């Protein structure tokens, strides 16, 4: 079942298309990695699917079960400032804001959801720590927990492993694989580290002007990756 279907989609900024004729299905339970060169439109594609940017053409069909409030998102570079006064728990539970409606405070259920993902991401020890004092890895795990709180259905991650060392990256990949397999969360991720991503995801999308390849990591490897056949 397709949760999100892009049909002849054209995405870009200020009327200038970056990707055209995008036909792509995001199916339930998939762990997808979108790859491509810098400036190839990966982030713009994700933002368009998240309704953060307007499509320049074509359409996106969302499954009826997928409401605007049932997606989680980890932006590429968080605009939150290094001096933002917030504890880790405040940041994580803010992912439940789309469940809050017009209530003033979070209820027991929402606190339990936040605690569940705090445990999944193994950040229980730092929940009272200030967000501005966190390391890069701790920060990403906190933001990932927040993204999970906002949705247990689809998770969009825009370069979640940027500037993280290989040890932290591998640890986060295992956590994502667990979230995908155990909780059934569909994950759509952008990564520049193709080699590592191929080990963990079950679908690869290569973009360069349009969608040039959609398939499994094995099929992608057989084609020789983006440097050979796909680039031609």
């Amino acid at each position, binding site marked *: 079942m397709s949760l999100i279907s892009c049909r002849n989609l054209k995405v870009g900024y200020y009327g200038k298309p970056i990707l055209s004729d995008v036909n792509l299905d995001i199916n339930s339970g998939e762990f997808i990695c979108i790859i491509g060169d810098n400036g190839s439109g990966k982030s713009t594609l994700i933002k368009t699917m998240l309704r953060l940017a307007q499509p320049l053409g074509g359409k996106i069909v969302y499954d009826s079960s997928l409401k605007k409030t049932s997606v*989680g998102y980890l932006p590429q570079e968080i605009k939150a*400032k290094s001096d933002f006064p917030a504890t880790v728990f405040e940041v994580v539970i803010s992912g439940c804001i789309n469940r809050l409606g017009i209530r003033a405070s979070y209820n027991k259920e929402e606190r339990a959801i936040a605690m569940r993902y705090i445990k999944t991401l193994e950040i229980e020890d730092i929940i009272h720590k200030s967000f501005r004092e966190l390391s890069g890895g701790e920060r990403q795990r906190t933001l990932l927990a927040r993204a999970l709180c906002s949705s247990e259905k689809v998770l969009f991650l825009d370069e979640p492993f940027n500037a993280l060392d290989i040890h932290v990256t591998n640890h986060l990949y295992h956590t994502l694989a667990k979230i995908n397999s155990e909780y059934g969360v569909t994950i759509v991720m952008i990564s520049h580290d193709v080699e590592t991503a191929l080990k963990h995801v079950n679908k690869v999308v290569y973009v360069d002007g349009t969608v040039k390849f959609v398939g499994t990591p094995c099929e992608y490897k057989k084609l020789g990756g983006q440097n050979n056949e796909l680039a031609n």
Partner: protein
Amino acid sequence: MNWLTDISNIIKFMPEAIIAGVLLSVSASMVGVILVLKRFSMIGDGLSHVGFGAFSLALAANTFLDAHLNVSIDKTGWEYLVAIPLVIIVAYILLRLGESKKIKGDASIALIASSALAIGYLAINLTGGTSADISKYMFGSITTVTTTQMYICCGVAAVVIGLFLCFSNHIFAVTFDESFAKAIGLHTKTFNTILSILTAVIIVFGMRIMGTLLISSIIIFPALTSMKLFNNFKKVVWSSAIISALCFIIAFFAFYQYSSAASIVIVNLIAFIIATIVGKIIRRFSKK
């Protein structure tokens, strides 16, 4: 006990000024936390210049109508009817420009602020305005706060405090990461519109107390002072409101015979320095 008599006399003769000042300080500091965290610290400065431009244009239009067209109109609150809508529009544009990659927020604030100041100054000069008119808008005059203005300040404070009491979690989410908040379905446009309106109203009425040149201090200082002491968003918001009110009261009663606006800034500056030192001591001890 002369100072006690002085204080009771001030309270007796200027209750509107004290109430309006405390409530505006509280409102400005709470909204200020959002503006500082959204990297819009200078928006208060920019908008106050726009407010000056709008007040000056209203004053110039009045003078022109009186002198040349012999039109007699009721001038009560006329300058506010010009300034508030104009400042709201500019506030909204500036907050929207902050999201744009084409024009940087700080550059647009500088552009609009200097243009508005120039237009206002020129308008006053062309219509024979006096330096007293300019000084009133530039440096504020708390003693001339009217009962109507005090009631408006009560309304603004009620709205700001009410919003923070009911929606502090929503405000946190949007301030912390607007694109995330938008992606998961929050109405960030509504948030920004409300923020623009509140900022504009606070600045236009705050100009009466603090003047064009110093108004941004009551928006920025309390937020920065609280951020030196607390690591939690809600604590920062409420403590900045308390700090701001205390600074206003101390400045008002201790230096009422001097410039009230300048005294408020100086007391806020002292509070900031003390908070910086206390914050460092707290962090050093908490690490141990």
